[in-house]
């Protein structure tokens, strides 16, 4: 056993020395390899992080939302529907939600207006996100004018500003009282935006949703699980598409690796010839080539993965963000925390290292079977 390890150590020793002797040629290869790993890893890490963030954010969302649809469009829903829903066994609570968007022409931004469940906001006042306060240069106590549905103006006093830590989710948020909300948008008393339903046993969610659909045929039911699943699918789909596009570069890289491995210089061929003449066997030369591949792969893989991690952690994957995150599709903004697990590294291994290895096996074998007599002559 010890002798065998010693033997491998010697082969490895020789391999590393040989690699260093041809520094420039190998440096180019390692550089391209690192770049490929970096690109693939950035996509994989980033789409996974987005998925996690969406999951974390949606933790606080209601389990089920019931929306009314008219002619295939989301419509306001009558509060009377609540009674029918509450009658269904298993429903713990149901309430109407009031929310909407308001475009502020002064700063050219969209606000999200929401009536909180608890009556924490007094009529005539509002609680706003830090981003909004900054944009409007206002502080607690200031008034902000809103243009109501009939063109008149309505002033609301800022009672509270959300701290900046909550900023990414709440920076465009405005909490208002129900009266103000209805007055602003001219929404009748008996209508709300949608209904949030709470269910005692989460396993019954689909059944209850089905019952609601039967009792109220003009509504659609959206489960939190489904929103999550859709986000998951969207992010992974985007990540997959990017990887499919990048696979073109991987292919080019494989060709480069294949070409480099098969186009051996006369000097290298002579080197292998000498090795074989002094007693190396074909299997040893293949072993050496295998170590060579491993050394190059690790040298490229580790920095590539680390750089990608930094790319996602420090710049929120600045290169790919618009493609992967989408524009207005996802309303809440995300702060990116990279999230790493073994399967991602394994996936990267299959996307980058395996193709490289496969591309070099056959040229390595070709190199290993050279006839010492033929090359040294």
């Amino acid at each position: 056993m010890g002798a065998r390890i010693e033997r491998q150590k010697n082969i490895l020793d020789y391999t590393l020395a040989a690699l260093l002797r041809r520094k420039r040629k190998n440096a180019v290869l390692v550089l391209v390899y690192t770049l490929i790993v970096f690109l693939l890893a950035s996509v994989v890490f980033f789409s996974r992080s987005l998925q996690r963030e969406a999951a974390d954010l949606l933790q606080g969302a209601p389990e089920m939302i019931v929306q009314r649809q008219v002619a295939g469009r989301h419509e306001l829903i009558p509060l009377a529907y609540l009674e029918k829903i509450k009658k269904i066994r298993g429903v713990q609570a149901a309430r109407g939600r009031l929310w909407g968007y308001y475009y502020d022409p002064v700063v050219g931004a969209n606000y999200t207006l929401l009536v909180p469940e608890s009556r924490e906001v007094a009529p005539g006042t509002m609680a706003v996100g830090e981003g909004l306060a900054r944009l409007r240069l206002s502080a607690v106590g200031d008034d902000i004018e809103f243009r109501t549905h009939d063109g008149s103006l309505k002033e609301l006093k800022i009672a509270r500003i959300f701290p900046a830590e909550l900023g990414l989710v709440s920076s465009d948020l405005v909490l208002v009282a129900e009266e103000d909300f209805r007055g602003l948008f001219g929404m009748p008393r008996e209508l709300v935006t949608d209904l949030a339903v709470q269910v005692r046993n989460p396993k019954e969610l689909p059944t209850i949703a089905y019952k609601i659909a039967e009792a109220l045929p003009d509504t659609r039911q959206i489960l939190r699980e489904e929103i999550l699943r859709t986000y998951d699918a969207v992010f992974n789909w985007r990540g997959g598409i990017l990887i499919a596009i990048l696979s073109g570069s991987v292919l080019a890289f494989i060709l480069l690796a294949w070409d480099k491995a098969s186009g051996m210089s006369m000097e290298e061929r002579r080197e292998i010839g000498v090795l074989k003449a002094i007693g190396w066997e074909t299997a040893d030369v293949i072993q050496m080539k295998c170590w060579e591949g491993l050394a190059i792969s690790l040298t490229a893989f580790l920095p590539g993965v680390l750089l990608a991690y930094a790319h996602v952690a420090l710049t929120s994957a600045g290169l790919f963000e618009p493609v992967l995150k989408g524009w207005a599709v996802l309303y809440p903004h995300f702060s990116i925390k990279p999230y790493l697990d073994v399967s991602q590294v394994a996936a990267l291994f299959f996307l980058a290292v395996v193709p490289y290895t496969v591309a070099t096996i056959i040229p390595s074998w070709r190199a290993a079977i050279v006839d010492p007599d033929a090359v040294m002559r």
Partner: protein
Amino acid sequence: MLFHPTILALYAGSLMVSFLVLYALPPTWQVWRRWDLNSGSEEQLTIERKTYLISTLLAYAFAFELLSLFLYIFTAEQLHTYFVGAMCAAGSLYVNAYGYPTLILRLINFLLVGLWLIVNYVDNRAPDYPLIRKKYLFFLLLAPLILLETALQAGYFLQLKADVITSCCGSLFSTDRTLIPDTPNFLPQFPARVIFYTVMGVTIGWGSYAYRQGRGAVLFSGLSALALLVSVMSIFSFISLYIYELPSHACPFCLLKPEYHYVGYVLYLSLLGGGLTGIGAGILSPFRNITGLAVIIPALQKKLILTALILFVMFAAVVTFQIVRSNLVLS
């Protein structure tokens, strides 16, 4: 069809392995048909060189198979959120008819490629390659299975369709199906435990005997295969229950999750490794009378039996530890 990065990685892995196998096929055929060690012809010389290529290709294919086996389960696990009613990998593999066959074929292929490498190792140590035609025939039979695995896996992934929200309604109405496979409670609890410990005990006992005496490897090989099967069934019928501490959760995949301290990796790696080396010890026996292998095989058999013993003992010890530590009491 889902465009998931890890799915693409699995496609890439399978295509690469298939490429290696396809590339190895023509030279293998040539070796099988035309091998003649006594000939000094140029053709024989070329063929001899090609044997190095085939061994190298298959060694890599084997390594990739092992790694992608776990990645496959991992991916199935991640995918479960896409399907209404699936709780973990057990559910997502059940979504269409290709999920489980792919997994089973992957396991079989892993064992077969491993056995091929063991035979190949022995054969390469003898100066006159006595097993060469046999091992290449073995490979010719094995290759279609690996290609079939790639096809089945593609079938599985291509037919996946996530239950996402559509614009007209929530996707609720696909909830009629249940994606929880019938729990294969092969055996009632009590006999299952008795059978598991009996088979393990006999296998380990006979293995120690075979190791010391240098014979009985064929029987050990059969016992190892049996132990592998019984252990897999036991994971379904009681081992998983003890680990999850839930009498109703008989899932072989959640063991691989971090919540259970990745105990599944220890269990499956020791079990697969033990099964492979145990079976491998026995299939060498018929060749031990061939001159040139008479010394090599018994020595290797001892090593294989010892490895299998260590791995089986490890498996049994981890299982026993989990049962003792568990708060679940099954009667």
